[in-house]
C-alpha cells in the first residue's frame, strides 16, 4: 500500500512470521460486536489494515467509529468477535489520553515499575529509568510526584513509561487531546524525534485532523457506527512538517471534508 518510505531493517526481538512482510501490525477482516442486554452494537465492521515496521499511522474518525476499540484489540486488552489481529510477537505499549500515572509513586518510580514488571533486574533499572526520563527531556524531574508536574510533563512521563515497556509498537489513544495547543505542538516534535531515534511503529488515534496530518506517514479514516475503513491518505515524508504548513493544512482540509460527509450520513 504505502511502504515507499525507507524503513531501516528492524530486528525486533521476538519478530516472527509477520516480520518477513515487514508488517508490525496486521488486522484482517476484524469485527467487534458489543452485547448489552438484548441490543447488539457493531463497533467495528470487517476492518483490515496493516502498519509497516517503523511506520507512523494515524487513525481518524468521528464519534462512534470504534477507534478505542481498535486500539484495545491491538493491545490485547480485548478479543475480536471475528477476524484476526496479529502483532507478530512484538511488544505493544499503550498511552492513553490521561497520563494514568500512579499518584503514590514518583515520576522515576512510575517508569521503573514498568521495567520491573517485565523483569529487568534491579541493578539495571536505575540507569535505564534515568535514560528514559532524559529521552523525554525530564532529566532531573524523576523525584517529583505526578501532581507536582504540569499536564504536558505528566504525559511525557507516561511516554517514558510506555517506552519502558520496551515496546516495538506504540499505541496512542488521543494522547495529547487534553493539552493546550502550544504544549501539544512541542510534544509533536518530541514524539517525532523519539520515534526516529528508536524506530518505533506507531498507531495513533485522534479526532484532530491537523494532528493526524502533522504526524502520520499515513492517515486512515474510519466511518462511524459501524467503524469501517473508508479512506486512506499517504503523506510524503519531506523532513519535518509544521502544523501550520500549507501541506498539512491541505490534507487537514481534505480530512475534514471527508469526516463531514461521513457525519452527514448520520444526520437524518
Amino acid at each position: 500500500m504505502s511502504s515507499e518510505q525507507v524503513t531501516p531493517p528492524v530486528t525486533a526481538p521476538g519478530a516472527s512470521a509477520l516480520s518477513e512482510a515487514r508488517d508490525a501490525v496486521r488486522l484482517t477482516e476484524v469485527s467487534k460486536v458489543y452485547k448489552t442486554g438484548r441490543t447488539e452494537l457493531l463497533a467495528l465492521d470487517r476492518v483490515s489494515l496493516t502498519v509497516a515496521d517503523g511506520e507512523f499511522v494515524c487513525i481518524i474518525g468521528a464519534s462512534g467509529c470504534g477507534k478505542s476499540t481498535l486500539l484495545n484489540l491491538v493491545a490485547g486488552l480485548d478479543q475480536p468477535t471475528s477476524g484476526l489481529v496479529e502483532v507478530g510477537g512484538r511488544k505493544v505499549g499503550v498511552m492513553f489520553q490521561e497520563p494514568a500515572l500512579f499518584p503514590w509513586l514518583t515520576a522515576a518510580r512510575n517508569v521503573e515499575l514498568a521495567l520491573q514488571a517485565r523483569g529487568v533486574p534491579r541493578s539495571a533499572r536505575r540507569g535505564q529509568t534515568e535514560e528514559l526520563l532524559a529521552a523525554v527531556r525530564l532529566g532531573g524531574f524523576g523525584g517529583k510526584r505526578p501532581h507536582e508536574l504540569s499536564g504536558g510533563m505528566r504525559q511525557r512521563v507516561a511516554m517514558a513509561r510506555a517506552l519502558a515497556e520496551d515496546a516495538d509498537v506504540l499505541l496512542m489513544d488521543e494522547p495529547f487531546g487534553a493539552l493546550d495547543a502550544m504544549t501539544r505542538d512541542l510534544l509533536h516534535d518530541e514524539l517525532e524525534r523519539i520515534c526516529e531515534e528508536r524506530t518505533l511503529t506507531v498507531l495513533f488515534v485522534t479526532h484532530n485532523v491537523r494532528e493526524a496530518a502533522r504526524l502520520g506517514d499515513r492517515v486512515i479514516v474510519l466511518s462511524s457506527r459501524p467503524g469501517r475503513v473508508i479512506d486512506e491518505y499517504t503523506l510524503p515524508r519531506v523532513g519535518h512538517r509544521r502544523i501550520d504548513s500549507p501541506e498539512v493544512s491541505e490534507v487537514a482540509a481534505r480530512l475534514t471534508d471527508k469526516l463531514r460527509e461521513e457525519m452527514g450520513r448520520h444526520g437524518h
Partner: protein
Amino acid sequence: MVTDQALRGLDNLELRPDQGRPERSRLARKAWAAIWPKLGAIALVLVVWELVALTGWKPYVFKGPGPVLSDLWQQMQHGMFWATIGWTMESAAEGYLIALIIGSVLGILVARIPPLRAAVGSIITGLQTMPSVAWAPFAIILFGENNSAILFVVIMGAAPSIANGLITGVDYTPPLLLRAGKTMGLRGYTLYRYLILPASLPAFVAGLKQGWAFAWRSLMAAELFVAIIGQISIGQQLNVDQQSQDFTGASTVLIVILVIGVVIDTIFTKADLALRKRRGLLDSATT
C-alpha cells in the same frame, strides 16, 4: 534544539516556583492559628460548666470544674491512675491489633473472591451497623468475665469497619490505572502489590480510623460490663464511681476517655492528611 529550549522553558513556566522552607516565625503563627480555636472551645466549656455549678443546680451532687480538675490533678500524682489507663490501653491495643489482622485478611479475601463477597459482604455491612455493646452479654456467656470477653467485643466492633475500608478501596481502584497496570504487565500478585493495594490505601486508612472509633466505644462498653478481679480498667473505675455516687470521680474518668479518644483520632486524621497531600488529592490552597 529550538524545540528542546522551548520545552524546557514551558516546563519551568508551568511548574509552581519552589517556595523553600517556611520561616520559623511563620510556622509559629500557623501553629498558633491551629491551637487558639481549640483552647477557646475548652475555655467556653469550662465557663458554661462553672455557670451551671453557680446556679446551684443539684447542689449535693453537681460540682464545678474547680473541684473536678483539682481531683484529676490529685489522681495524676498516683500510680494507680496511670495503671488504670495503662491496663485499658493495653486491651485497646491488643484488641485493635487483632481486629486489624482479621479485618485486613477478611477484606482482601472478600474483595478477591466473588462468591465470598456475595455471601459475606452484606454480613460485614450488617455487623458494622450493629451496636457493639450488644455483644457484651453474649461475650460474657461465651468466655466468662475475663479479658477474652473484652477483646471479643472490641474485635466485633472494629474488624467490620477495617474490612469494609479495604473492600471499598479495592472496588474503587480507578479503572484507567487498572488498564495502565495491565498493559504494563502487572498480573496477579504484582497487580495487587504494586497497584490495587497502594490505590486502596486512602480508603483503608479511613476504615482504620472508623475502626478505632468503634474499638474505643466497644472497649468502654465491655469494661463497664466485665469486672476482672485484681485489674481495674477505666470502664470499671466508672462503674465504681457510679456505685459510690462519686460525681467528681466519674467526671475525671469522662475527661480521660475524651482526651484519649481525641488524641488518637488526631493521629489518624494527620496520617490521612499526609497521605492525601503526598498524592496531590488536596487543594494546595487549603494546606
